[in-house]
């Protein structure tokens, strides 16, 4: 696979997108108004889920309506840039690869800083990082007083540096030589606050979890981010980006009150009227979480941080952002509420099996008539807009991780404290099935429910039973893919030398 496949040919014909919306609306209105209601609680739960699906479908199509948005840049604009590499106990070889990559950037005027948080994070290798900086001839800023996790580390770095622009890299994201040349010239526009580039995972083919994590990302960093460009609503992702110092300082630096400091800070910049830009080029390559625990932590952090925007920062009514930006942020954030809808969809077949209740009463083929064209075209649109980068595995990861979304939304709603957790850069070997208890429990529940239902009906198998069993089976199969990711992995994680090799040669043979 070519690195930038997910960035190419993302534009879907507008006629197809329009038909997509019509089919989504048709499906929704048939479900909501034309089919006979069943049990009312289940019906309204279903409608809640369908409203959510409709919202997601419409905002997705709106976002990807036009993914080709050109912005002028001035190649002569080459101001000084501070390059921050944030570190908090990651393996030395990982950090070294990134620093070497940063030093190899082809740009006339930049300074590399390692923002070493290992000391305050009580990491054993913090002093090794200092020595590495000396060895490579870069600056190392080591904090002694903890505050604000990663955001605090960055703000500390900002306080002792002065270049007008700052590039950010996580310790595992190795920039390409052209990174600064491809991003900084856009800042000739004095209203531009930050330029974001894709968070590409080079190790996506090394194991099952990393692959799923990247395939999920490919849809976001492909058509979605390209579409957000048009709406001046680019998501700040914390790494592989360049920020205008004055803009960042205007909003108080990186926001320290959230574990998704980048996302919230980007929102504040938009709120203050600054512009954002997404450069759809892979200009740095990083590491995806390679084990299930790391993946779960990463997803939980993103979910919690994003949902804080709704529950703690008044996204719906806050002033300063445009309607389009508000809708875009709402669309991004609401993805992390989808776990509730998955839960509802998973419960409905079980309710039928154990109680005989159902949300709507209609000919099963009438439902098929409105549903199949809608889902077929939607999946095709997703596949086409991601240029065949989005996969069934990614879909399974997105759907089956419902408990992460639920737990995060509850924590955010009740403002429970949540610690910043760095995604491990090395695969943790082990069995993480304990993280998928809900998914594993669902599978026998469907089987038991189906059996109970048939026995209860004196052996009669009705069309409704077949349909509900089919829905239950779909959920179970999708959950099984997720459970598989939690099971002990057999593949070896990618070594740093392989990663470096990959960075230099563009492609890596696994």
């Amino acid at each position, binding site marked *: 696979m070519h690195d930038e496949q997910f960035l190419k040919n993302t534009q879907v014909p507008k006629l197809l997108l329009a038909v997509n919306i019509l089919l989504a609306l048709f499906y929704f209105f048939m479900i909501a108004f034309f089919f006979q209601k069943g049990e009312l609680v289940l019906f309204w739960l279903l409608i809640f889920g369908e409203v959510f699906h409709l919202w997601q479908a419409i905002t997705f199509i709106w976002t990807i309506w036009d993914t080709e948005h050109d912005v002028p840049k001035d190649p002569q604009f080459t101001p000084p840039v501070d390059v921050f590499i944030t570190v908090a106990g990651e393996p030395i070889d990982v950090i070294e690869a990134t620093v070497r990559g940063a030093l190899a950037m082809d740009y006339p005027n930049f300074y590399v800083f390692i923002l070493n948080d290992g000391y305050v994070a009580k990491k054993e290798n913090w002093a090794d990082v200092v020595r590495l900086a000396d060895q490579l001839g870069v600056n190392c800023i080591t904090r002694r007083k903890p505050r604000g996790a990663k955001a605090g580390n960055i703000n500390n770095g900002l306080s002792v540096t002065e270049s007008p622009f700052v590039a950010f890299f996580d310790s595992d994201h190795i920039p390409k030589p052209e990174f600064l040349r491809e991003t900084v010239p856009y800042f000739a526009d004095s209203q531009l606050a930050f330029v974001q580039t894709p968070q590409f995972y080079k190790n996506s083919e090394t194991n099952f979890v990393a692959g799923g994590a990247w395939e999920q990302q490919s849809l976001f960093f492909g058509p979605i981010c390209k579409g957000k460009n048009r709406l001046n609503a680019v998501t700040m992702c914390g790494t592989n980006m360049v920020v205008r110092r004055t803009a960042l300082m205007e909003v108080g630096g990186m926001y320290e009150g959230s574990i998704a400091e980048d996302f919230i800070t980007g929102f504040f910049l938009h709120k203050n009227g600054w512009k954002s830009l997404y450069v759809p080029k892979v200009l740095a390559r990083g590491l995806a979480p390679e084990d299930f625990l790391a993946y779960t932590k990463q997803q939980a952090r993103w979910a919690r941080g994003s949902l804080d925007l709704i529950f703690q920062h008044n996204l719906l009514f806050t002033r300063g952002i445009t309607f389009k930006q508000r809708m875009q942020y709402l669309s991004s954030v609401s993805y992390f509420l989808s776990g509730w809808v998955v839960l509802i969809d998973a419960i409905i077949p079980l309710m039928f099996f154990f109680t005989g209740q159902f949300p709507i009463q209609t*000919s099963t083929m*009438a439902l098929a*008539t409105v549903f199949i064209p809608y889902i077929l075209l939607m*999946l095709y649109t997703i*596949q086409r807009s991601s240029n065949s980068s989005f996969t069934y595995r990614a*879909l399974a990861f997105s759907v089956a991780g419902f408990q992460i979304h639920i737990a995060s939304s509850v924590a955010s709603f009740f403002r429970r404290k949540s610690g910043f957790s760095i995604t491990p850069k090395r695969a943790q070997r082990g069995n993480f099935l304990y993280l998928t208890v809900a998914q594993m429990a669902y599978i026998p529940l469907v089987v038991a429910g189906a059996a109970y239902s048939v026995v209860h009906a004196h052996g009669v198998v009705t069309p*409704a039973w*077949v*349909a509900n069993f089919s829905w239950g089976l779909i959920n179970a*199969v999708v959950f099984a893919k997720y459970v598989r990711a939690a099971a002990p992995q057999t593949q070896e994680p990618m070594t740093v030398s392989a990663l470096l090799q990959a960075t230099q040669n563009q492609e890596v043979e696994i």
Partner: protein
Amino acid sequence: MKRVYIPYILIGLVVFAFLFSMFYMMPQSIGLDESQTLWQAEHTFTGIFYVVGQDVHVPLYHIMLHYWLMLFGSSVTVARLLSLIFYLVTIPLVYYLGKIAFNESLSIFATILFTISPFTNWYGSIIRMYSLLTLVTVASQIFFILLFKGKPEHRKAYWFGYFFSCLLGIYTHYFFLLMLGVDGLFYIAYHKIFPKHSLRNFVMITLILAALFVPWLYYVHTLGGFGANTTPKLTAPSTVDVFNTFSNFLFGFQADPLNTAILSAWPLLTLLLFFALQKNQKVSPEGVYFTAAAIVPIVLAAALSHVIEPFYLSRYFIGFFPSFCLAVAWFFSFYPQSAATVGKFALAGFMVVMLQIQTVNPQASVKEDYSQVASYVSANASSRDIVAVSAPFTVYPFEYYYTGSATLTTLPVWDQLVSGPIPAFTTSTLAANVGTFGNYQKLYLILSYNQGYESDLQMYFETHYQRLYEQNFSPDLTLYVYQLNYNNTTLADMQTIVNSYAVSGGAGAAGTPSTEQASSTSSATLSVVNYQ
């Protein structure tokens, strides 16, 4: 799959289709449509134009059948052989179509699906134009694909082949026009992959085809329009009918409970779609073409049946079934190799099982066992009885097998030799019709092809006469025996009747289905009621 095996597989598929037809299909009872076709084909050349023009069909197949019967004899088996030949020729052509559109591996799987389908095996051996329609549709698609994938130096031949196959197609079945519609839509969407001047050529072909078809349409118009003298009338399709078409394609004509279970599992399609989300899998124009050919005509015909007039029957879409097979095979190409292998085996295996069930199950929805019911009536009805079939047009297949001495009529009473439509049913005309039955002792009432008045008709007899017997021979084909008069019935007659039911378990007396046959009709409704 190794290329060297493919010819053997193709030969094996053709042999399979031939033997299956010989052993299972040829002995089947003739159905209503077949009997009508035979009747139409027995006319003179101009007579065929006349009777087919009043029907909902076009005359090419009937003319071919006419000369075929003249050459080789007029038995049902001979007539069915013509269809079988078309079917057998189509099998390698489906493979060739898939090969030029995709690749050999994909194509051979599609050809296997086509050949083991209960749907094609049924219509591949009946006296109708469906196997010819499939053949010409595949031929036209081959030339259509070659227009943009074939060798440039042969392009003239492709254009001619396309034109000629389309000409045969439009005179084989009206639904072939839907194929032209799909070709047109595909051309609009993918005109860039076609050679230069193809728009001009397509327009020319369309105009010439139109010029050659308009005379026929005008002739039909002078006869009173489409289906001027045709029954049964169809009803507008429901969503179930639409999905049934796809279910019929793959799994044939199953009894209602099984078919309902299959259709109700439709959500699993969502899962199959999910599986197809794989990296680096692009949608090819050929894939779009066959998918469109498999879906668009069906959806369009269903919609038009509601807007204009109902004309929707799943068998009319048989020409699109090879496209459906190729689309399914193409869909599997999106899957990872192991998943595709499992999926292909599962699908093919399930289809083989369904083929077997359709073959042995007398309640398979497509079966019309006029042979058995005629044998039963021939053996049991005497010259003092009367036999009535309803709907009236079902007299064709019934009288093909009927050899009894009882008078045969229809309800409503219809004189086949008099031109014009079948008389409409009303309760008053029914009473008048029954009034003409005079002193007949028993009425053997055979009901099939419900035209909307079947229950009224049956209710009339239930409330006016005593029902002696009832037997269901195949789906929607039921025999009722009513006592019309007692004047000449002796006690001995009554005792004979009672004994005959008691001994045979209700299957009838001498000359009726054997015990083995009767037991094979396990789900048939069989009862003796109100016997005094």
